[in-house]
């Protein structure tokens, strides 16, 4: 043990053999119990044995017991070091419970033919769902739409940056504007859908529609032609989430030392040059983080689409998530819907990893 570690020891560990044995028994015994219970339940479910189980809760209880014993066992066996592990282990077990297990179950379902109305129940069907996906024009249409939705992040970023610069300047009512610009982010997307998409843009009495009529658009309809509908959807989504990027960029701007900009001005840099040569490069790390997080939000876009257009007209506003929602919910096609979600997850992970790598490489090469 190094001296640095010793500095944090507040009590000397005196772990006897009995305590150590008990700890090891807990650590190894509890998973054995978990394994036996899970095995018994599996045999009952699929091999015709009858152990009297009525549901899968015993396995859940055994897992909770295992988690508790594992934590307790760490302290018994490792003493103070074990207590330190307890700062992380419960969280790790929690994450495993809520992500890894469902992901594994999801994979099983994804490779199944499971229509909830089928009396045959779930049937393993290999890669048939992948083949179906490959030939499914609705899925490819939704993926193509996602490309356009993602590209819309770039103008959103420009607007967010401009707003952040404005709020960072010494203007009157600065606090008011900061709160006002943040308001859309506080609204539920479903509320935005109804307030804006279905009320303000309503063709007969909506104020935005009436404004358009005054401006010469004879029959203003924001969702009836594919590109107008897609653009309107992008605008509503942008209106909701630009404040998110704006607030991140604003925080970054406020962290830039004033001296740097003052030095640039002293050196004779114009406003634009000062921004382009000093502010923008310094803001790149924050900008990349803001854009990446915004990208994650964007890839999950569904609620306003489902509420306002259900993906129409003719799939023009459909997103992958809203399509999966229909496939899964309206058609009870659980196996195929899960496969679509899994493939989308893989696409997102790969795309995000590549983007982050590229951003990292760019940052390292530039600075």
């Amino acid at each position, binding site marked *: 043990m190094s001296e640095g570690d010793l500095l944090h020891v507040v009590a000397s560990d005196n772990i006897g053999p009995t305590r150590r044995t008990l700890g090891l028994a807990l650590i190894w015994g509890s998973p054995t119990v978990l394994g036996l219970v899970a095995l018994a339940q599996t045999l009952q479910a699929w091999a015709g044995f009858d152990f009297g189980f009525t549901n899968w809760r015993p396995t859940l209880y055994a897992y909770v017991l295992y988690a508790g014993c594992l934590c307790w066992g760490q302290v018994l066996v490792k003493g103070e070091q074990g207590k330190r592990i307890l700062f992380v282990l419960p969280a790790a077990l929690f994450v495993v419970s809520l992500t890894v297990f469902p992901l594994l179950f999801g994979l099983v379902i994804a490779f199944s*033919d*499971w*229509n*909830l*109305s*089928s*009396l*045959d*129940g779930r049937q393993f069907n290999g890669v048939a769902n992948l083949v179906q996906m490959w030939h499914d024009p*609705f899925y490819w249409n939704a993926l193509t739409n996602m490309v356009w939705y993602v590209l819309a992040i770039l103008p959103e970023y420009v607007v967010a940056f401009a707003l952040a610069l404005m709020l960072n300047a010494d203007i009157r009512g600065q606090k008011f504007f900061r709160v006002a610009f943040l308001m859309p982010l506080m609204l539920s997307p479903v509320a935005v859908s109804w307030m804006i998409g279905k009320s303000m843009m*309503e*063709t*007969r009495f909506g104020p935005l529609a009436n404004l358009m009529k005054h401006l010469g658009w004879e*029959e*203003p*309809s*924001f*969702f*009836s032609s*594919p590109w107008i509908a897609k653009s309107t959807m992008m605008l509503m989504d942008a209106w909701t989430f630009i404040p998110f990027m704006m607030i991140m960029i604003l925080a970054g701007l406020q962290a830039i030392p004033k001296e740097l900009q003052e030095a640039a001005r002293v050196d004779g840099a114009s406003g634009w040059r000062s921004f382009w040569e000093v502010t923008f490069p310094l803001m790149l790390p924050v900008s990349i983080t803001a854009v990446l997080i915004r990208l994650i939000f964007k890839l999950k876009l569904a609620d306003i689409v489902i509420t*306002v*257009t*259900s*993906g*129409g*007209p*003719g*799939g*023009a506003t459909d997103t992958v998530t809203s399509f999966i929602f*229909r496939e*899964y*919910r*309206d*058609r*009870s*096609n*659980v196996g195929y819907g899960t496969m679509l979600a899994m493939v989308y997850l893989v696409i997102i992970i790969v795309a995000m990893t590549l983007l982050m790598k590229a951003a990292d490489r760019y940052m390292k090469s530039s600075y």
Partner: protein
Amino acid sequence: MKVELYNQVVNSGMTRRGVLKGAASVGALSMMGSLISAKAAMAQDDLRQQILAIPGVGNGSPTDADWQKVGELCLGGTKSNVAEGEFAGVELTFFGINNNGLHNILFRGFLASWEKYTGAKINWIDLAQADYNPRLQQSIATGTVDFDILAMGAPLEGDTAGQGLLDEMPDWVKTQIEMDDYVSYLQAPVGTWAGKTYRITIDGDCHTFAYRKDYFGEGSISGLTEAPTTWQGVNAYSAAVKGQKDPLTGQDAIGYLDPLKGWGGFGFYFLEDRATAYVKYPGNPAWLFEPETMKPMVNNPGWVQAIQDVMDNIPNMPADQINADPGTTAFQQFLAGTGSGVCWWGDVGSNAKTSDTSVVGDVVGFSINPGSDKVYNPTAAAWETPATPNFAPNMAFLGWGVYVTNRVSADEKKRKAAWSVAAHLGGKDISLWMAAYPSGFQPYRNSHFNYEEWAAAGYDRAFVEDYLGSNADSYNHPNAAIEPRIPGIFQYYSVAEDELAKGYAGTYASAQETADAIAAAWEKITDQIGRDGQIALYKASLGM
């Protein structure tokens, strides 16, 4: 013995035991017979008049207080079969929808007095219309049915009764709710499965054609003296009124309103409204699938004509109609004064007069769904032109019913409580109120077509005859299109909605291409659910 008659005797001072024991009592009862019958009938008439006066037509939308009052007044049937406090400690879970603040919300009010009287407690699972079917399917497929009573449409009997999830109705319930009063199309086999009865009907579904009378007549903007009776006429008048002003609202005049946006599968019924006139050939019960093969008929020339009709009508409708679902066309458009024709369930009729948001109560007319000058004969694979138009009213969804699940089958007390809840909601008198006021349900009993009762409640006699007449004519139509009760029926409808949306948006080159895409998708669903099983259930539901 009729429930009301028994109550009359009890109210006159006799007890159950007193009524049933001894020759003297029987003799006294027989002597009292005619008097009692008359009194009982009068009492029931009084009750029906009393509940129809709550809150009274023209006094705004009923509130929860009104629902509670009606529920309490209609508790007679329950009291005749259940002792006070008999279900103390029983908890039941009721699964249903909460559309427009009705259905389950309404049932809560109706059942408040029932809970107080019996001592049972009801927990509620409220779902939006579009969430209903997936939640039900998930519960069934995953073995997690967590409700004892469910409000459900007959089309889903294949998914529930077909899988043995329901509890058979006890005989006392049949007596309490007076099942023989149902209109004929709701009698067995609807509500039954393998000869057993599972359903208490609380609704009789059919679509009827609601139209604005002020668009027709001498000097009207349509130029027609009468509302059209065929789909050819509907499209013609919709084109004729375009560019004119609505005589009631002064806004742009609009003709027939087709909902173009999906509604969790329910939107497909509105294409059926048009299509049945073309494809429901008299004497042939099949109009969705070919019974021997489950091959979809949805891409035959009749269906294609219906899709083409909708496409032709799109330019005549509001600019954003592509995003109007059926709820929008009925409640946000037609009842609010936009558009002059819509096909919907009967609650458009009751809402027209009693809902606060309706502006068309004085100018609305009803008829059975429009017919067609030509009909497609699937056997001959040829169009025919009958002497009179072919009418085929769409019995869309076959009405809501209340069912009890087999979760309660092993517990007799709980089972009786669950059926008592269902029987209270499906009672003869309470059903009259539900038919007359906004409830989400439409008439379904022969006794609902007593126009005098409606007139006494404050309805305009001519309106009621028109509105109820369109329902009665649809129910009794010899060529009515009856929906098949096969598993996954809403999957077929849902995927059809997606393909139709593409067709309406111009993604497909033609109506035929749109119909072919639907047919291909339906074939996949049939294969996935199991073709042989579907064929058997389809034929059974058609009575073949």
